């Protein structure tokens, strides 16, 4: 019995493509996503890839979303299954009424077991074997041929695809023709064999103007170039490596000099202990230096981060979080380091953290991080994650303020030093907890000795209780200053569903980082179900005053985050005076990006007072 045809859903569906990693499917997936984007339709791309070089299952998900949502949808309407190893579970994942496309060169009766899904067989291997020569070419072409099938099924414009190929292979025009040939094969076959287009199709819109598609690591690397960073030290670790690659390639291109001499240094360190040591050494010596790492790297950097805190040395660390504990799942996403980054190192150590939610914030927060590190003379950690860092996001164009000048903080030059009687490194002249600083090589008068051992406010070694405590107490004052300087939380109160409100609802959702996109979508859906919730996204640590005020203004705040142990909630409990019962957790930590439905379920379960432990942890 043929399944019932899906109702027409224009510009609102999800395609998922399952392939074998290392076979060249990434270019076809990127091409399809861009083709939707170029059709003026907002799009979300998610790459679910293994920690492996070749031969393991890998998926790419393209969400076509006319509403412009930025999270994954959490369901699959069209599955293109090209990896026999994952056929069975790929078929399971398709929603009822959806479509399943597979390579029917080798018929697989088992795939016909779901009668609520339309199975579309395309002999991709046969088509490519008949039309291309050579094993490698045939495999590559098979992995571009399905793009043609999808173009026919979803009504994508072949001219748009051709245009994209022409740009990609501007220097190798023969590749445009061979790729186009493969796409045309798939396109023609699908048009002949099936009733094209499907009800799930793309229709041109004008909703992507002024936008780009970029991943967070690329944006952050570019941000470091614009922030004036000159030293990058790093040790390769997934999912942060592409951030350093991006910085390097942008610095090479955008900062090219006539004599070819570089105005930056990139050092691949021997480990993360060394990379953070280099970053601290370079910042101490006045360069804007940074590193990028992930959870295991943060663990290794702890001792040096404590040194940076106590010697009051700037440093910028991008932590592109992945799944922990330990090695965890290196190619899956989580907000796993909220706690360990905030308190990295022994002793009374606390660190300024920034929490970007998307690639554009990764870009802008780069300069913010360097400015704060210089202004506050302390390490600043920027906590992105794999979802933001490595996935392609549709973002507003990145812009640069031509008037921007780096804030180097209280850095005394030779002239300023000549005017003062004596330089005291750790003295609080301005009552904001921030001392003055000098660089090596400027003036013997400004010389001081940085040390991780106890020191006085004048910079001398000490084991005297009082002298030690003066410095430690001033560091606390500086921490309070920091809470005023970090980016403010984003707060958006919803109108009440009925009647007059005082501008605040009883319920709120609080999230951080990549929780932003699914939570915003969830708030829309909750509203459609008659539940109005207010919204806050924290963007910096220490928390500003507005965070506590917001939490106290709501009877219940759902703290949505992507880890098992409610790390954001733990920070909120520790660092604000908000009573425990006001904050209820909705936790997601399976390694996949969060989808709105999970948040909606969690809130509705609580609203309807149903216990649903799998979806939420209420403490």
């Amino acid at each position, binding site marked *: 019995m043929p399944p019932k045809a899906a109702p027409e859903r224009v510009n609102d569906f999800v395609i998922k493509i399952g392939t074998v990693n290392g076979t060249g499917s990434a270019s076809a997936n990127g091409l399809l996503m861009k083709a939707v*984007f*170029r059709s003026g339709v907002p799009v979300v791309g998610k790459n679910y890839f293994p920690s492996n070089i070749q031969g393991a299952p890998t998926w790419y998900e393209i969400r076509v979303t006319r509403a412009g949502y930025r999270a994954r949808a959490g369901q699959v309407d069209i599955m293109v299954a090209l990896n026999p190893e994952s056929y069975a579970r790929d078929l399971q994942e398709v929603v009822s009424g959806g479509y399943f496309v597979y390579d029917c060169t080798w018929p697989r009766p088992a795939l016909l077991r779901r009668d609520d899904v339309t199975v579309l067989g395309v002999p991709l291997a046969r088509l490519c074997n008949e039309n291309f020569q050579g094993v490698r070419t045939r495999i590559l072409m098979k992995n571009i041929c399905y793009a043609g099938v999808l173009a026919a099924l979803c009504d994508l414009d072949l001219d748009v695809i051709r245009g994209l190929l022409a740009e990609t292979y501007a220097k190798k025009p023969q590749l445009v023709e061979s790729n186009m040939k493969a796409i045309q094969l798939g396109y023609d076959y699908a048009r002949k064999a099936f009733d094209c287009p499907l009800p799930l199709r793309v229709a041109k819109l004008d909703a992507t103007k002024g936008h*780009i598609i*970029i991943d967070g690591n690329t944006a952050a690397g*570019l941000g470091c170039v*614009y922030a*004036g960073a*000159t*030293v990058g030290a790093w040790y390769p670790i997934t999912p942060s490596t592409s951030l350093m690659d991006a910085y390097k390639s942008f610095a090479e291109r*955008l*900062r090219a000099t006539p004599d070819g*001499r*570089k*105005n*930056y*240094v990139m*050092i691949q*360190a*021997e*480990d993360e*202990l*060394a*990379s953070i*040591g*280099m*970053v*601290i*050494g*370079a*910042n*101490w*010596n*006045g*360069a804007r*230096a940074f590193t990028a790492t992930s959870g295991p790297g943060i663990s290794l950097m702890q*001792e*040096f981060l404590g*040194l940076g805190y106590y010697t009051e040395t700037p440093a910028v660390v991008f932590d592109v979080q992945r799944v922990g504990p330990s090695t965890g799942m290196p190619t899956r996403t989580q907000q796993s380091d909220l706690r360990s980054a905030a308190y990295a190192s022994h002793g009374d150590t606390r660190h300024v953290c920034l929490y970007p939610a998307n690639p554009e914030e990764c870009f802008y927060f780069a300069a913010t991080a360097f400015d704060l590190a210089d202004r506050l003379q302390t390490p600043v950690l920027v906590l992105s994650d794999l979802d933001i860092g490595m996935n392609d996001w549709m973002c507003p164009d990145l*812009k*640069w303020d*031509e008037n*921007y*000048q*780096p804030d180097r903080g209280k850095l005394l030059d030779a002239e300023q030093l000549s005017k003062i009687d004596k330089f005291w490194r750790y003295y609080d002249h301005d009552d904001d907890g921030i001392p003055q600083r000098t*660089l*090596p*090589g400027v003036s*013997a*008068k*400004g*010389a*001081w*000795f*940085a040390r*991780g*051992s106890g020191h006085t406010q004048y910079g*001398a*070694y*000490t*084991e005297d209780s009082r002298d030690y405590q003066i410095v430690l107490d001033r560091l606390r004052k500086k921490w309070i200053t920091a809470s005023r300087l970090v980016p403010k939380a984003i707060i958006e109160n919803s109108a009440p569903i009925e009647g007059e409100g005082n501008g605040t609802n009883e319920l709120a959702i609080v999230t951080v980082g990549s929780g932003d996109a699914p939570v915003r979508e969830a708030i829309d859906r909750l509203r459609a179900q008659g539940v109005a919730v207010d919204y806050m996204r924290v963007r910096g640590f220490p928390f500003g005053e507005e965070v506590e005020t917001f939490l106290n203004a709501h009877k219940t705040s759902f703290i949505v985050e992507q880890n098992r142990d409610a790390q954001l909630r733990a920070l909120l409990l520790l660092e604000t005076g908000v009573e425990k019962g006001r904050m209820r957790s909705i936790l997601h930590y399976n390694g996949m990006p969060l989808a709105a439905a999970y948040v909606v379920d969690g809130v509705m379960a609580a609203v309807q007072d149903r216990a649903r432990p799998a979806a939420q942890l209420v403490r």
Partner: protein
Amino acid sequence: MTFMAKPKVAHPELPRNALGLTRRDYEGSNSTLCAGCGHDSITASIVEACWANALQPQNLVKLSGIGCSSKTTAYFVSGAHGFNSVHGRMPSVATGANAANRKLHYIGVSGDGDTLSIGLGQFIHAIRRNLNMVYIIENNGVYGLTKGQFSASADVGTKAKKGEVNSQPPIDPVQLALTLGASFVGRGFSGDKRQLVPLIQAGLRHPGFALIDVLSPCVTFNDHEGSTKSYAYTREHYHAAVEADYVPRAEAIAVDYPAGESLLVPLHDGSQVRLRKLEPAFDTRNRANAYAYIDAKLHEGEYVTGLIHAQDAPEHELHAVNRTAATPLNRMPYERLNPGAATLAKLMARYR
């Protein structure tokens, strides 16, 4: 007592260097190390070398890790910035600092524990990058601040204070550095200022990584008679005479002997260290020969001292490899680093 200010009274006729500065201008805080510590003699040699090289004090950068040796960066050139970092990780801080400003002189002071145990990895990679710095190891074969544990340079048969005997063979930093292709390798003895000062002077002028391993007896903890780098008290005498935390008072040792001769140096306690200076005709540029020579002498129980190996024109220095601009990166004006708003606007087209 931790820090006492030194009286800043200079004799009007103290000799002055090319900058018009006296040796006093290159001193630092008072040492808090044990009286007679070899490290203080090395400090004096560093002061002498910086003065003799007429270094502008603020153009020197002092770096160290953790340990007795690492404290010493506070005891010389108070007009220079210093960074006493974390245990064994000074090389990375030096690497970053050097990356930020290639024009300054970097001197790192470390110990055998700081370099050869906890910091071995960073030490090796600083050599691999041929970082332009002088790296001095104040090598006494023992952990001082934690009271007498063996370090990785302790000799087989060395006895700890409580009688434990070291059975693991030592790591020799000089042989290690030669193996790794270090471009400048020297060894000195803390008591031989006449040999050490020129080594440091040469190291400061070497445009790459200059390792100077300095045998520096620990008056307090390394007490095995016959150890090639100790002031070996006899066990009976030591324990009979002193409490566990008592520091025997002693005068620093000075030796002077002609090149090419082997010399037995009497130490405070009547024990001795055997030193051998290189033959004046020894070819310091031949790394393999240098290695073979010091290896053969080590097997005879002799530490070869002097300039062991130096490349005339060292390659692969960090900035040479990177082709870094001549202007130090920390002085690069932002205008030269900012690609500008228009460039960014143009760049956006690549992401559509």
